[in-house]
């Protein structure tokens, strides 16, 4: 059996805007078909195969249901392993004998570094025992700003889904490549923002 992609399991085209209600329905229908009760009287090999398929179906559903995981999965199908970017850049630079290019644009690194510095200062002040309303207010302001940036990144990501889907529909490879790069950049930005949100919540005791 050739390995199906998660999209293929659900008989969906590899697109990012998907009907999640239909996805859920399809998931339950397929799950029923693979239910162990239906295989109780079958040979062990068939039971095992159904179990394996069922587990793959669960993975596929969990991945496609979640917008960020879905995007990461599609990018992986397109050859971009988000978790391997740094390593890939290092390998490419070494193979070419060139200085490694940072995968994150300097502006984002500057911004993230600066935000982390501000947050670190607030956290240090808190640890010093300062528990003034002013400090808490600063942290809340920072939290609101990070949350807003997260929402913004999400909105931008969704607009790239649209760009990807329509480029894929019309076979526009250049458009697909543009959307792909933009999605990678947005997911990277999101991963930094997620840490900032986590840290500010932590400082606020949320």
């Amino acid at each position, binding site marked *: 059996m050739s390995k199906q992609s998660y999209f293929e399991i659900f008989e969906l085209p590899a697109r990012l805007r998907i009907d999640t209600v239909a996805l859920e329905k399809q998931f339950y229908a397929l799950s029923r078909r693979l239910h162990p009760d239906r295989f109780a009287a079958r040979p062990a090999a068939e039971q095992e195969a159904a179990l394996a398929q069922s587990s793959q179906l669960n993975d596929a559903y969990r991945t496609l249901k979640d917008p960020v995981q879905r995007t990461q999965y599609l990018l992986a199908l397109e050859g971009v392993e988000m978790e391997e970017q740094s390593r890939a850049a290092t390998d490419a630079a*070494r193979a070419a*004998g060139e200085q*490694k290019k940072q995968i*994150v644009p300097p502006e*984002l*690194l500057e911004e993230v*570094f600066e935000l982390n510095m501000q947050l*670190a200062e607030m956290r240090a002040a808190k640890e010093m025992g300062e528990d003034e309303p002013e400090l808490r207010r600063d942290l809340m302001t920072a939290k609101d700003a990070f949350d807003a940036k997260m929402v913004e990144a999400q909105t931008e990501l969704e607009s790239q889904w649209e760009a990807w889907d329509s480029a894929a529909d019309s076979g526009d490879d250049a458009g697909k490549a543009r959307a792909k790069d933009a999605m990678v950049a947005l*997911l990277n930005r999101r991963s930094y923002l*997620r840490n900032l949100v986590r840290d500010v919540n932590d400082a606020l005791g949320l």
Partner: protein
Amino acid sequence: MAYSDKVVDHYNNPRNVGTLDKSASEVGTGLVGAPECGDVMRLQIRVNPETNVIEDAKFKTFGCGSAIASSSLATEWVKGKTIDEALAISNTDIVKELALPPVKIHCSVLAEDAIRAAIGDWKKKNSVAETTPVAVAAH
């Protein structure tokens, strides 16, 4: 996951945390990041223009224990070295010294990137011709 004693030591007592004057001509700044973990690392060096020896190094890293330990160790190692000697530091040296597990090797790569970026920045500021030594390090 258990950190090695050396990682814990650098994490609890990071060496050379701080900032050098970014605008000074003898200071090189490297800012690098690994988006996979949301790490961001700044490493700065102050180079003696007569001797090309790195006389001071500072870092600030936001990230996991291994990223902090890797950059802390990197500042210790570059101090007292010439620019060329510092460029010879490879991530595998850091991995060995800190006994980093495979999943944390990218932290050492980031520290190596930071050293190179800082030196690159210093060279650019001082119009030193950019050579690109090819590191032969494994992950």
